[in-house]
């Protein structure tokens, strides 16, 4: 459902992404691991057409993102590291606004239901979100994604800075979405949760995908070991490993 083919992106002289090939199918939670600057966020931005590729294509459900940006965005939901909302609007108003931007409209009760499902306290729903904690804002972000009924989700370190409970609740939601057949691509630093929640793990380094794992076939210890091996390895090893999975 999400597919990158020889996807390349340069910022001036810096090659941020060097011919990325990857596929995320419906029902997959694909966790992208890698150091900062490895190209995770660049990949997500390319799927969102926030930036244009210098080579290759990104497709969503077979549609080329660069050619049909609005159509592909309708199929996607995006949750950034920091969900940014309109402080002077309530959670419900934020949810309604973003839903309407995505072309959906629901009744008041349905909106409340979305916010309940992501675990937002009842009393917070009609409060202006400038008083919200980061966890609460992320929940609204998830509700926005739920309400969009997207076929594919792009998550950019969505649990960074969340307390363990909120993080756990978030994982529950992802599993729920996955069971409904959504394709989920998540950039993360959380190896533990990647193994726990993800179905597949991709390790990125310097703009390349250097390894892919199926979480069912490895243990936590394996994930950490393999990840650190890639991080410590020289450029040659990384290049040899590219596309080996």
């Amino acid at each position: 459902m999400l597919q990158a083919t020889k996807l390349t992106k340069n910022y001036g002289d810096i090659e941020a992404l060097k011919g990325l090939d990857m596929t995320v199918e419906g029902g997959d939670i694909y966790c992208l691991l890698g150091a900062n600057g490895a190209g995770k966020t660049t990949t997500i931005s390319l799927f969102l057409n926030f930036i244009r590729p210098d080579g290759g294509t990104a497709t969503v459900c077979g549609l080329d993102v660069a050619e049909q940006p609005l159509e592909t965005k309708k199929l996607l939901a995006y949750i950034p590291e920091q969900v940014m909302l309109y402080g002077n609007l309530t959670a419900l108003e934020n949810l309604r606004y973003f839903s309407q931007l995505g072309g959906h409209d629901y009744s008041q009760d349905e909106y409340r239901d979305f916010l309940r499902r992501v675990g937002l306290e009842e009393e917070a729903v009609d409060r202006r979100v400038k008083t919200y904690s980061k966890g609460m804002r992320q929940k609204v972000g998830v509700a926005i994604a739920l309400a969009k009924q997207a076929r594919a989700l792009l998550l950019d370190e969505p649990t960074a800075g969340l307390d363990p409970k909120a993080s756990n609740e978030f994982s529950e939601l992802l599993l729920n979405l996955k069971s409904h057949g959504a394709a989920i691509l998540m950039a993360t630093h959380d190896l533990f949760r990647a193994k726990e929640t993800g179905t597949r793990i991709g390790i990125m380094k310097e703009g390349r995908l250097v390894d892919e794992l199926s979480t069912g076939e490895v243990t936590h210890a394996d994930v950490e070991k393999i990840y650190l091996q890639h991080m410590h390895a020289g450029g040659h090893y990384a290049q040899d490993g590219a596309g080996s999975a």
Partner: protein
Amino acid sequence: MIASIARKEFSEIVRDGRFKWTAGIMALLLLTALAAGYQKYSAYMDIQRMSQDQTNAQWLNQGDKNPHAGAHYGNYAFKPAGPLAFFDNGINNYAGTALFMEAHKQNFAIGRPATDQSSIGRFGDLSGAMILQLLMPLLIIFLGFTAFSGERESGTLRQVLSMGVSNRQLLWGKALGIGGVVLLIVGLCVLAGGLALSLTGPSTESESLGARATLMALSYVLYGGIFLFLTLAVSAWAKNARTALMVLIGFWAFAGFLAPKAAVEISKAIHPTPAFGKWMADMRSHQMRGFDGVPPFVRFEQESREIFAEYGAESIAELPVYVGALRLQKFEEYDFPVFEQHYGQLRDSYTNQRRLQDRIGIVAPTLPLRSLSMALAGTDLIRHVNFADAAEAYRRDMVLKVNNYLGEAAASLNTGYGGGNVLIADEAIFAMVPPFRFDSRGLQATLAEHAGNFIALMLWLAAALGLALWSVQRLKVEED
């Protein structure tokens, strides 16, 4: 979709703490200006009506006297104002509102409030028009400069653009939302002012008031739209909100202060106004010299044969009318082309200045709007020229009527040029001159003269819109 964006924009602005202050100050200033305009207009209309009635009564009760002396006694014309003058006082402070009409002389309008004001008066009148021309753009800029730049800074733009909404829809929605807020503040105040005037103000008949008010509202909406789309364009283009604000305030100062001042200076330099003393001296000596270089006394002697022939007479003795009155009227008529030439020269310089200013108006939307606004309010130069023309026509008719009366009444005293001076007429005869009434030229003429200003506003709106569309099309959440 666009409606949802507009609604969100609207509620967000209205809930912002800054809004209460800006809206409050704007409403306060506008209402104060409208109240001041209302007060000024009512007082002016009272004075105008009272003075016109008084001068008419004085004319009718001037006592028994020689009819031509009655023409010297003269009469005043007071310029009436349309109801929209309460909103835009135009050039009334400078052009004068009362004109003395007498035999042998065409006069200037006097009664210019500006001459009684200290230099602070040069900043202009506190009027509804001034508030809307200068402060409404500022309000739009304050409400709109963060429309895109602020969302980019706070990070909401990333999420908004991830939803699959087109940039154009965002633009229209934001324009509608911000425009709605501005319209609400300004519209309510103006409506309140207009309502107060129509309910309790002096009743005035005014030609095509509805059409004038509608066109005026339309002009201000166009003007607001120009600033709205420019604000959105800059907000989408600028890297951050601070840059957007700085660029917009710079343009505002240029359009509202620099360009109008420059336009006035340039137009004065290219079409200089004659120096008053010299102009007046030139006109008086031209009268003495005679229009074609033949002094009036000489010209009357030269043409007397033909003049007498019109009456079937060959000498003064055969004339059926008093020759002194005939000569007075001829002298009067000999001056017509002199007045037309000299006043025409003055008027042309003002008119050319205004036209040039209108043309310069293409560089800043405030200029064409200002010109249009006072034209529609009936407080502009064209209206003033119409008034002066009407007063001159009235003056000529007044003098003609009394001279003709003298000619017939003193026909028996036809011994020489001064024989009829002894004639004393009953004051009742002065009723043959009807009271002065000023019917301004219609709206059509105003529109024809100001079509260019409408076009300039439209062009500005189209340019602002084009700029906004271009700017949102290249709207980026990240550097590429």
